């Protein structure tokens, strides 16, 4: 009996020790120091969406291993990333992943906190993107400032000497391109789907100049898609550009068979004049295989001017989160690797992105962004962290959340002239209002 008691006691002690060890808190991203803990041994399984740059990523791993030789890092690159990540989020078969669309109040269920938001905000950009109740759960790989890709030579040939600043000027530029050159004025990339959903990125900061629009104003807005008094700003103006371009035949002829990979050299070589995509696409167009004029690829701000000023929505690309189920060593090693990727790898710069490290350098693609304010979306109001995603789900509009179909429909109706633009916007307003009513959202 005594023996048994002793055994039980010993077990309890051991367990107590174990739980004590687990409670010993991990350092945060700002606390760890590069070059310490170099004997760290761990295996990291990194799930990521950049299937186009495996060598580059391996290069970072090799470089990282010079300092931390016992940390084994394995990348798993997935094409259909957003869906896959969402399905695997609760598993233990990954250590680091780009955070897919999850509700913010569930972040702590899947990811460890990287540190206090206030502290990290001082060191890095866009940390609040995946933050909840003062804790930051994801650090971006690179940042994007959204504008429009254009071909400089084609614009010059069409006689567009000054970059358009309003929807009317932009449409004039497209008309000039159609008239004077052989290029496709605006390539929609309709068939790829997500390239159409990309238009949603401009309805906030770019169309209104307000950092609060996307997360604070939109959820409470009454009829957000209605025509503004000036007709030149707001979400209405953004989608109207697309509708008008489609209606006037300023887009590709057979939009249902567009090819995403094929469009890259086409912009580069001047067969396409403009494409509405985030700045992350810039390097892909410039370095496209078969592209002979990388110097012609330019980037401009979205052509909406609010009170005499243009704004560029800036935001993070996929943010990295660390699996809450990983072992302590794996978590620590992951923190070091993320620190390396952010501060030393030069990834953001080489991708033509806005730097994440506050001391980082801006690449030259933003040359045309002189005098244009880069504004990141403000956080949702207290207690409304998940409101936008709930409205998106309820209304099925999925704004900035994969709602590609609705933007494709703008192209269809514009091109076929079978539905007025105002009717489309009225439908969206109705869906939005119904969702607000269902979720008891206060409408201001």
């Amino acid at each position, binding site marked *: 009996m005594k023996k048994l008691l002793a055994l039980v006691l010993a077990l309890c002690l051991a367990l107590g020790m174990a739980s004590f060890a687990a409670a010993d808190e991990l350092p945060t991203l700002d606390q760890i120091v590069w070059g310490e803990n170099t004997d760290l041994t761990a295996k990291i399984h990194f799930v990521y969406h950049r299937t186009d740059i495996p060598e580059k990523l391996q290069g970072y791993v090799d470089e990282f291993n010079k300092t931390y030789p016992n940390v084994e890092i394995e990348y798993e690159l997935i094409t259909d990333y957003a869906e896959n990540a969402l399905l695997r989020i609760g598993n233990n078969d990954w250590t680091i992943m780009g955070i897919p669309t999850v509700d913010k109040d569930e972040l702590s269920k899947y990811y460890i906190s990287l540190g206090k938001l206030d502290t990290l905000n001082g060191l890095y950009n866009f940390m609040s993107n995946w933050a909840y109740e003062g804790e930051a759960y994801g650090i971006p790989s690179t940042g994007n400032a959204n504008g429009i890709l254009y071909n400089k030579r084609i614009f010059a040939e069409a006689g567009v000497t000054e970059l358009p600043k309003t929807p009317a000027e932009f449409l004039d530029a497209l008309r000039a391109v159609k008239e004077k050159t052989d290029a496709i004025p605006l390539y929609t990339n309709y068939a790829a789907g997500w390239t159409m959903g990309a238009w949603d990125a401009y309805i906030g900061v770019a169309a209104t100049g307000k950092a609060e629009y996307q997360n604070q104003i939109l959820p409470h807005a009454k009829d957000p898609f209605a025509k503004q008094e000036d007709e030149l700003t707001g979400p209405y103006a953004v989608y109207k550009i697309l509708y008008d371009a489609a209606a006037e035949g300023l887009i590709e*002829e057979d939009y*249902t*068979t567009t090819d995403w990979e094929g469009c890259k050299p086409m912009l580069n070589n001047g067969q396409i004049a403009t494409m509405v995509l985030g700045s992350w696409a810039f390097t892909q167009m410039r370095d496209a295989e078969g592209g002979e004029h990388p110097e012609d690829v330019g980037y401009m701000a979205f052509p909406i001017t609010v009170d005499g000023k243009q704004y560029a929505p800036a935001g993070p690309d996929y943010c990295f989160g660390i699996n809450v189920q990983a072992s302590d060593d794996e978590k620590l090693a992951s923190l070091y690797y993320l620190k390396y990727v952010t501060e030393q790898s030069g990834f953001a710069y080489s991708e033509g992105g806005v730097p994440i490290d506050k001391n980082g350098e801006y690449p030259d693609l933003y040359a045309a962004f002189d005098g244009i304010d880069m504004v990141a979306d403000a956080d949702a109001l207290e207690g409304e962290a998940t409101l936008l995603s709930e409205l998106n789900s309820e209304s099925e509009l999925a704004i900035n959340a994969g709602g590609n179909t609705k933007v494709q429909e703008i192209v269809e109706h514009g091109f*076929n002239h079978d539905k007025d633009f105002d009717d489309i916007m009225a439908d969206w307003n109705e869906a939005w209002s119904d969702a607000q009513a269902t979720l008891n959202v206060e409408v201001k």
Partner: protein
Amino acid sequence: MSVMSKVQPDLRRKRINWQKVAVIVLFAIVPLFLLILFTYVPFVKMIQFSFYNMSYTKNKGFVGFDNYLKVFSKSEYVGAMLLSLYYMAGAVVQLALALFFASVLSLENIRGGGVYKAIMFFPFLVNGIAIGYIFKYFYTRGFVLDSVLQAIGFKLDSLPYWLRDQSVNNWSLVFTSVWKYCGQNMVLFIGAIASIDPTLYEAATIDGANRWQQFKAIILPGIKTVFMLNLILSITGSLSAFEPAYVVGSMGANGTATFFIKIHQMAHVSQKVGQACAMAMVLMGLILIFTVAQRLFFRYVMKDSENTFNAKANKAKALW
């Protein structure tokens, strides 16, 4: 009597062979376990989910039949279901073609018949996604189909944009599915036709029956079961069409979104898993209704023809 009493005790004494039972249970347990785990448990869960307002990660509560009511109240979904009619029309054409080729290849001694069969069957072996990409280029303006049509004298200006024009794009998609499944149906038909006693044809030929009469009187009744199977598979396949519209039609863009694609979008874009499950249940219900209706219809038709056949036979017997 005495014989019976001798036999019966024997039967009663026959023991259960435990070894045999053990083997049967052991062999059955693995597939049964997998079947229950991957088919019935998810199915029961799906029924459960369809009554809740929920996403993948969150359950927002029980909503009763609300999800079901929404399926029927939105014109968008009814429209998506009506798209199945295109695929059903395609299925009829596909079965007719398959039956035609199967009969020709079985009845006539065609040199290189095996090669034709292989060529016809090949599309079925190609992965659906690959077929999707093949057809995307096939239909692209100025590519394969347009070039071929131009070569035989059509003017490019008079040709439609196969995927862009909403008057033809669903037919384009249906064609890809016919192209894929026609060969498979044909092979099933050939198999069924091969099991018909060849002396029947000889007898029929002697009696002066032509090919059409042979087809009607010998082949058609002979392959009744396989025909029914193919028909049911094609019609239910039409109701749940997905691949062509998803891959060739750019994920159901431009008015090609079938009901199945709507379910996919509901679950993965709008993240309404409960609603998507309810839609899946409705789809299953529709498929069940169609299957039962077909069975009843054909039982009625077939019985009728069998009766007339029997009546004729009886008459003949009586005359004899």
